[in-house]
């Protein structure tokens, strides 16, 4: 084998190892990726926002709590990731209100059936979130396709938690200062039981 061929093979193997290491880092530890859409609007911009995804501590729904913003594979379509806020943990009772008939994402010529996947058996009912599932809601309720449509989401689909987001427009050289997202609720009332206990204490004279 000539030394040039060996040199080429060596370069390729170095590239393979670095690529695999980067992939391992991105899938298991940390990711910084662009996010968009109307569904999280007051919290995350429709365009140009980038999120920091903590996968090491929160992959597959570990250490997730109500109020956290999570990145998750969409249960009803391929190669799609969603960014939503956790609204209910396993065992919590949530109100599955119906999706809005007309919303910011349904156009006039777009039928409601094309937007919402099918006849929703949960609409208008109180349901208990099953074990190993979470109830996800977008902050922008009128333009969010979330658990109200596709039901409780398995925790195994959760890719990671979003502690920070920062704006990085096409005209910006560098992303803006990261701003905190979603952990403000955790400090006050992390679960339904804790919340109810606090309410009980409030009225226990």
């Amino acid at each position: 084998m000539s030394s040039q061929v060996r040199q080429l093979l060596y370069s390729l193997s170095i590239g393979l190892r670095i690529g695999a290491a980067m992939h391992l880092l991105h899938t298991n530890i940390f990711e910084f990726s662009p996010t968009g859409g109307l569904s999280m609007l007051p919290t995350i911009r429709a365009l140009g926002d980038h999120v920091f995804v903590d996968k090491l501590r929160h992959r597959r729904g570990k250490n997730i709590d109500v109020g956290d913003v999570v990145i998750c594979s969409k249960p009803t379509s391929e190669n799609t990731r969603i960014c939503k806020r956790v609204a209910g943990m396993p065992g919590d009772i949530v109100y599955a209100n119906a999706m809005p008939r007309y919303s910011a994402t349904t156009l006039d010529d777009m039928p409601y059936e094309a937007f919402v996947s099918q006849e929703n058996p949960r609409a208008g009912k109180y349901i208990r979130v099953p074990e190993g599932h979470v109830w996800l809601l977008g902050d922008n309720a009128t333009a969010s396709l979330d658990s109200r449509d596709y039901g409780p989401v398995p925790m195994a689909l959760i890719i990671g938690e979003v502690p920070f987001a920062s704006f990085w427009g096409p005209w910006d050289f560098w992303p803006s200062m990261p701003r905190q997202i979603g952990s403000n609720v955790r400090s006050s009332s992390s679960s339904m039981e804790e919340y109810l206990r606090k309410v009980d204490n409030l009225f226990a004279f």
Partner: protein
Amino acid sequence: MSSIRGAAFTSLFRRFKANNSNFAYTTRTIVLALTWIPVVAYVANHQVWIGVIDGSSMTPTLNPESNGLVRDIALLWKSGSKNYNSYNRGDVVVLRNPRDPESSVVKRIVAFEGETVRTRFPYPEPVCVVPPYHFWVEGDNIHSVDSNTYGPVSCGLVTARIRYVLFPFSRFGKIAVRGGRDPQAIVIGMKSAR
């Protein structure tokens, strides 16, 4: 081959062939071997790996003895596991347990999106329409905890498909294509393309 004794950049293959016993050389070889771990991890997570089948939910296709002493080792084909259209009816898949994200289960695909399934006992309704990008999965064993307990499962939960059994050498080869309840009898509106 002793000429590569002090060389810093030498391939792992040549290093093992050279068979040197110098401390610095050995250390360098170990470090070089460690750099290949991410590549192995990528193959194990996204291409192909082997897995030990636990439990009796796929009896008699997998673990036919069901005494827990002999456990099957199967080839887990992970490449393209998120490609919904690549699945056929009767494929045996490994998926994350929807009720417990840290554990996995092995089940057989019974129905695809848009089809209606006649359900079994633990399911609250007599029939269920499978949502888009979801499967209805059941174990070959009648006692398996499957979609009749936790409903249709998203294709995003599927991590691998099983076609071959490797370990009890007596049963080495392709696994049975059919098993469990007959899809022809329980799926309403079956799409013939699958």
